């Protein structure tokens, strides 16, 4: 136990002596992991915002309450007869409420303020050809039951088709930034070891084993990784808080589930620590030959 405390103490003495290089490494790891974390959050925002479009609803026709379900059914029949429409279906207030609860499952406070009566019934339309949405829109303009028409526009179509690409880019960015964090830490530890190579030689001469020499550097690397990861998580949390304050309509959300943020924060911190461990182990290898 006293040996472990001694080694931890050595690691922090090393960090203090190496403060400038260590600070540089922490900031570099912070930038890498913040970008990686940012990519994860961005992917999640894209996923959340395109959730309702991913089930094939190209148009959502929100209906006024006048006329009730009977009038709504008549309109549904009319819409189903449109040549551009592949399929149309009716979502009543209860269904809309269920969907609302699903989308805002992470915000129970918001869900508590809304009841099924507050939400409009709607007709969801799937088109044969997405480019014909304007014709359907034209037919419905001025209809007495129409409250609002949400269009799954070509822009959204492109966004959705881009989602896969964005996901791949995001994952690629996470991997690249993670690898760069490992390399940065390995380099920092290698510089620290190079600066102290004579000390290491002396330690070996008095009988210090490789692990005795290695552990403080590994703790040093893991600390750099954890600090970098911690700063990255703090930056992403702060940015998310700022985004949350932007007023949005039902179509665009800048909030992600706090559970998602928390789990990814733990992941980023663990990755930071692991990157430090791997980086310092890599940096140490060639210096510890007897």
């Amino acid at each position, binding site marked *: 136990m*006293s*040996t472990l405390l*001694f080694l931890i103490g050595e690691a922090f*003495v090393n960090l203090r*002596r190496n403060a400038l290089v260590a600070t540089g490494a922490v900031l570099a790891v912070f930038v890498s992991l913040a970008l990686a974390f940012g990519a994860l959050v961005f992917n999640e925002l894209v996923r959340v915002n395109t959730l309702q479009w991913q089930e094939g609803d190209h148009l959502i026709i929100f209906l006024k309450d006048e006329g009730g379900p009977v009038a709504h059914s008549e309109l549904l029949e009319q819409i189903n007869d449109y040549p551009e429409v592949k399929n149309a279906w009716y979502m009543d207030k209860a269904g809309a409420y269920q969907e609302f609860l699903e989308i805002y499952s992470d915000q129970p406070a918001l869900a508590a303020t809304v009841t099924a009566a507050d939400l409009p019934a709607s007709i969801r339309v799937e088109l044969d050809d997405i480019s014909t949405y304007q014709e359907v829109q034209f037919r419905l303009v001025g209809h007495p039951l129409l409250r609002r028409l949400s269009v799954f526009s070509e822009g959204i179509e492109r966004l959705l088709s881009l989602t896969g690409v964005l996901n791949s880019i995001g994952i690629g960015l996470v991997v690249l930034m993670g690898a760069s964090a490992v390399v940065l830490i390995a380099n920092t530890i290698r510089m620290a070891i190079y600066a102290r190579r004579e*000390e290491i*030689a*002396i*330690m*070996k*001469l*008095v*009988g*210090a*084993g*490789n692990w*005795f020499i290695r552990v403080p550097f590994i703790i040093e690397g893991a600390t750099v990784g954890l600090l970098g990861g911690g700063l990255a998580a703090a930056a992403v949390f702060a940015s998310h808080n700022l985004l949350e304050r932007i007023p949005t309509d039902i179509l665009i959300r800048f909030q992600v589930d706090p559970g998602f943020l928390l789990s990814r924060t733990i992941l980023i911190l663990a990755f930071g620590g692991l990157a430090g461990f791997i980086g310092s182990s890599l940096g140490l290898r060639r210096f510890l030959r*007897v």
Partner: protein
Amino acid sequence: MIRLHNVAKVYDGGVVAVQEVSMDVRKGEFVFLVGPSGSGKSTLIRMCLREEKVTRGKIWVAGKDITKLPTWRVPYLRRTVGTVFQDFKLLPNKTVAENVAFALKVTGCPRSIVRRQVNTVLELVGLSAKTDRYPRQLSGGEQQRVSIARAFVNRPPILLADEPTGNLDPATSVGIMRLLDRINRTGTTVMMATHDFAIVDAMRRRVVQLDRGRVVRDQGESGYESSDES
């Protein structure tokens, strides 16, 4: 305590440092390795510490064949052999007490024992009043005393010294030799490489003379030059 059998060391490029050296150092003996620069004294000491591997031959230290020692066992060998060098090899960012304590901490020794042993050995080398100083705040002689304290703190059966007085003035060298002699009298085997003929002549101990990597003289209670020559 130390036994070398037909030991040879050839460095990369074919430079022969040591050839066919055989010698025995008994428990409690004090042996001087003498010879001109490049005669192989330091290489012999480095091989006894497994800092260098032998090219041929065998070396036994404290009963163990260290030429067959796996790499992971080397630190354990070094814990049984105290070492003192010309350039002191102290850790610059540790105090006197921390430098000495380090040799015990690598063995996992409990803190209370470390403190007690460090105080005892610093008293032995006359540095009790300077425990909190850093190496840069000490004279050469004091730094060498710290180095000796570190080498002796875990009471090793063997102490190897490579030119320990090489950087010191004659008066300070005498003090260092007295200290090594005192350590030897506790039963520790001492093997010391040196150029300092005054010290060798004054001490009158066994002398092993090397020349171009070979043992050319091995004489008990001798001076720097052969008794036959003087």
